[in-house]
């Protein structure tokens, strides 16, 4: 099957001259329809920038982003509009992403009306207006049911401040669904939600994948969440703008190869005292993340990496190479060594 989203050597610079930073450095990624891909990494690794480029909120500085095989920068207006509808984003902060002066009904109805108007433009006439309103109302109720905001009547007239964080995030999802997207970028979509509610949000998102064939790019800093959400999918690990390792989730979690992935997996605190005690931590040579303004040469992880090979790691940028156990690793030194973590 052809990928629904394809990134080809995508690079994003911010600023210019001496202040120029490379937020994303020549990454390539294929996402097949129905797949779940998790993008994980720490702040500043470029994962959110990547997500924003995928939905068309930021243009890449170099490289191409393809939607269903078509370069989005070369699309005509109609195709571009269709792509922008088909690819939606759910932001991290449901307190900031919803308009505080609108009720849930207004927030959901507006894109529905607009969407409907676009689809039936030309055939619209006065007599159908009431009917259209009714359709929109019915669809809004359906969408709230899909995201488990029930009984629907209780939520339609609420303002965001009357909702909890989890409920707001459900409204964000319902709003994204108004345009029947095929691809959703979920950028830290459950990070601000209380733990007891997180799982039901994740399960709701998984259901969308199964019932509505939505493909997900799930962006998170939380490896445990990535493992849970993308167990049947893939995890891609980014560090300072580059992909350092990717692969099927079970392999990446239990047999990671890149020292950075291993450092992350070892460092994650575990919600289990025995696991916390048993866990092996990879000792890094430095705790500080290099500045994006002044990136190390060669492998950008080399100043922190305990496995550094002088004269190799600090000179040549390692390429992502396939490994036989699934996925690929950008570390010629460790790519064939079994993980000591986990």
């Amino acid at each position, binding site marked *: 099957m052809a990928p629904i989203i394809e990134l080809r050597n995508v690079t994003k610079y911010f600023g210019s001259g001496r202040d120029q930073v490379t937020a994303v450095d020549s990454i390539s990624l294929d996402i097949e329809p129905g797949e779940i891909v998790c993008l994980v990494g720490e702040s500043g690794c470029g994962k959110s920038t990547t997500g924003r480029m995928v939905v068309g909120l930021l243009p890449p500085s170099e490289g191409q982003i393809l939607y269903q095989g078509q370069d989005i920068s070369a699309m005509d207006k109609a195709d571009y509009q269709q792509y922008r509808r088909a690819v939606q984003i759910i932001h991290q902060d449901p307190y900031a992403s919803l308009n505080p002066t609108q009720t849930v009904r207004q927030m959901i109805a507006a894109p529905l009306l607009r969407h409907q108007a676009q689809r039936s433009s030309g055939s619209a006439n006065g007599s159908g207006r009431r009917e259209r309103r009714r359709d929109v109302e019915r669809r809004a109720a359906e969408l709230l049911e899909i995201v488990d905001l029930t009984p629907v009547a209780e939520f339609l007239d609420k303002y965001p401040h009357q909702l909890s964080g989890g409920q707001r995030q459900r409204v964000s999802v319902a709003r994204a669904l108004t345009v029947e997207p095929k691809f959703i970028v979920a950028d830290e979509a459950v990070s601000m939600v*209380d733990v007891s509610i997180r799982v039901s949000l994740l399960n709701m998102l998984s259901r969308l994948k199964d019932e509505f064939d939505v493909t997900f790019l799930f962006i998170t800093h939380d490896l445990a969440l990535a493992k849970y959400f993308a167990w049947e999918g893939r995890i891609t690990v980014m560090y300072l703008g580059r992909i350092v390792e990717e692969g099927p989730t079970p392999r990446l979690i239990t047999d990671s190869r890149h020292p950075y992935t291993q450092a992350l997996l070892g460092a994650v605190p575990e919600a289990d005292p025995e696991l916390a005690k048993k866990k092996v931590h990879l000792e890094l040579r430095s705790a500080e993340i290099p500045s994006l303004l002044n990136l190390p040469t060669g492998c950008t992880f080399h100043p922190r990496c305990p496995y550094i090979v002088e004269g190799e790691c600090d000179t040549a940028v390692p390429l992502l190479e396939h490994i036989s156990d699934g996925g690929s690793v950008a570390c010629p030194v460790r790519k064939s060594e079994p993980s000591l973590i986990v």
Partner: protein
Amino acid sequence: MSQATDLSWHQNIDENGSQPPLSLQDVHVSYRTRKGSVQAVRGVTLDLKAGESLALIGESGSGKTTLGLGIVRLLVETAEVSPGKIIYRRDGRELDVLSLADGPLREFRWRDCAMVFQSALNAFNPVLKVWDQVWDTAKAHRWNNREEVRERFLDLLRFVQLDPARVIDSYAHELSGGMRQRTLIAISLLLDPQILILDEPTTALDILTQRTIIDLLRRLKEDLHFTMLFISHDLAIAAELADRVATMYAGQVVELGPVEDIFYRPRHPYSLGLIRAVPTVTGGFEELSSIPGSPPDLINLPAGCKFHPRCPYASERCSNEEPQLERVGDNHFAACWHTDAVEEDIERNGLRVRRST
């Protein structure tokens, strides 16, 4: 990585037989709002033992941060602590924290009980260099020997594994998040407090930075035997660092016990619910489940057990009578009418349900 640092000035505390340095007795905190009184903390009774680390865990609105701020009396003016008593003990003297006048209160904070806040950036004065802030703090506590203060602070910076020369003359914004958090911990230790309260000490930090802070806090606990109170929504912090755990819900401690009991033999449905909602990284592939519903409205609390609208074991009794903490094991207490049902559930279904991989 660890450097030999002289922290001999820290008084090791006799852990046996001494009275707990901090006792909370039936502490209530409410906030006045236009809509009514928000009952943020409702009757918390808790001893913090010498040398132990106790984790208060719970979600937003559970009252954990309010309780922490209440102990050092940093609550906003609309908050009222009543009824309740907070007793602090050191070297045989006993302080009634809630009735301290301004002067003694300032002494109590920082010298006896220091708090490290969640947002490390906001805790710094943005226009002062780190050293100026430290010197101000020392002077405010009548420690006027500049050389001595500087010497101590340099030691502390080394203890938290920072390069003293790099940090001491920096502004807060010049430091990374992890460095700020370490600096803050170093400052909190300046006056050798007996108790450290840490509110979400690792939240909002990146994973690798989080690990270095956890390791640092573990050294404070294991090497220097600080008495610590952790406040966190993150179960992992409790699992990594706590000796005892108190689960809070709707302003009350609903379960209290040694860390192994809370994580492996929880008896309150809310504790069990939290454990089943949180994935691990190295624990195989677990089936997770969330707790239905959302936390209660603190102005208009449900009758009976505050958790009953979300509880899978709730019965008639739960909606009428509020359970109190009762002993369910050695040093293990839970406030639930159906601790037996929780135990059975775990026996039947396991603590976490593993999915076959």
